């Protein structure tokens, strides 16, 4: 999708707001401070999507939250296994290296990260565009990145060829991939609405 500089700026502002809200909520949930650093935004051809997080056969922990309402899309937060465990330590306030295997508690902590991220994005969209959107309950999946992302790519391929991918890191140390993927119609609508408001 070709965006004008002003449209990029509007989109970046929205993402920055969403990540700031995510940082705030995550910090409240934990004992320490959790920051999401300098997001990088890019549009990626859908056929490249399955390889975005370490290759299509890389094992990942993914949290999926759907967007429903006036915009339709998908938010996915992806962690590679080591990152997922580091994130759990961060969330539970344990010293780094404590979590060696994802247990029920770790899984629900990560699902909550997905929930918070998804909700923050949805709030930022609603706040800046005035569109009515809502998140679906989070789903946690541990499997090959390709298998998870392909399923989403397939849905998006019905309406477009690209996905908006946001890459960030938690506290500058734990890399995570956020994928905010409105379908093509929704993306166009979001951009138009953001522009009109600016």
């Amino acid at each position, binding site marked *: 999708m070709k965006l004008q500089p002003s449209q990029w700026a509007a989109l970046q502002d929205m993402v920055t707001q969403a990540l700031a809200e995510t940082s705030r909520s995550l910090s409240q949930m934990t004992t320490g401070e959790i920051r999401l650093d300098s997001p990088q935004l890019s549009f990626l051809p859908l056929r490249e*999507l399955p390889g975005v997080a370490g290759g299509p056969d890389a094992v990942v922990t993914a949290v999926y939250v759907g967007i429903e309402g006036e915009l339709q899309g998908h938010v996915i937060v992806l962690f590679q296994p080591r990152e997922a465990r580091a994130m759990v330590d961060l969330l539970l306030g344990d010293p780094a290296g404590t979590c060696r295997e994802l247990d029920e508690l770790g899984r629900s902590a990560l699902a909550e990260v997905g929930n918070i991220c998804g909700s923050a994005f949805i709030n930022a969209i609603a706040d800046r565009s005035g569109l009515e959107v809502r998140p679906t309950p989070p789903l946690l999946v541990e499997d090959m990145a390709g298998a*998870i*992302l*392909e399923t989403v790519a397939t*849905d998006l391929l019905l309406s477009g060829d690209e996905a908006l991918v946001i890459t960030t890191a938690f506290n500058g140390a734990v890399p995570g991939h956020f994928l905010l993927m409105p379908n093509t119609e929704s993306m166009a609508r979001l951009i138009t609405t953001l522009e009109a408001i600016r």
Partner: protein
Amino acid sequence: MNGCRMEAVGLGELKVADKPDQVLVCYGLGSCVGLALYDPVARIGAMVHVVLPESSMGRGREAPPGKYADTGVEAALAALVDAGASRSRLIAKAAGGARMLRLAGSNPKLDIGARNTEAVRAALARHQIKLVAEDTGGTYGRTLQLYIKTGRVLVSTVGRGEHEL
């Protein structure tokens, strides 16, 4: 891997191979279906990474040859024959077609993985190619490999091991 050349077959791609050291691979199949076709006499194989069941679901733009089950199977057969394989000797094996996530906004009855599997079966049947083995469905990802030297087909998963199809 022991002098083998792994060649990834990405979303919607179709690849034909005839060198003994080649291995065609669909990595991380979710709702997509990987189809391996092999002529054991000519030792020529092909792999298709099917994304959607029917070309009628397309948006009227050019699509990669393996994107749809119906056109993908047809294109694979044509490419194999072109490369010197015999249609009547072809062995077909498939994996994938899982349901990884219940996506928001999608019709719960529209299980794209199951439809992809069904469409691959139907396309093969239309061309009188026998599907001798499949590992499809479920809610987990699969990697499919076809070894050109031997025709061996392997399916690997996360936590469910690896097995021969």
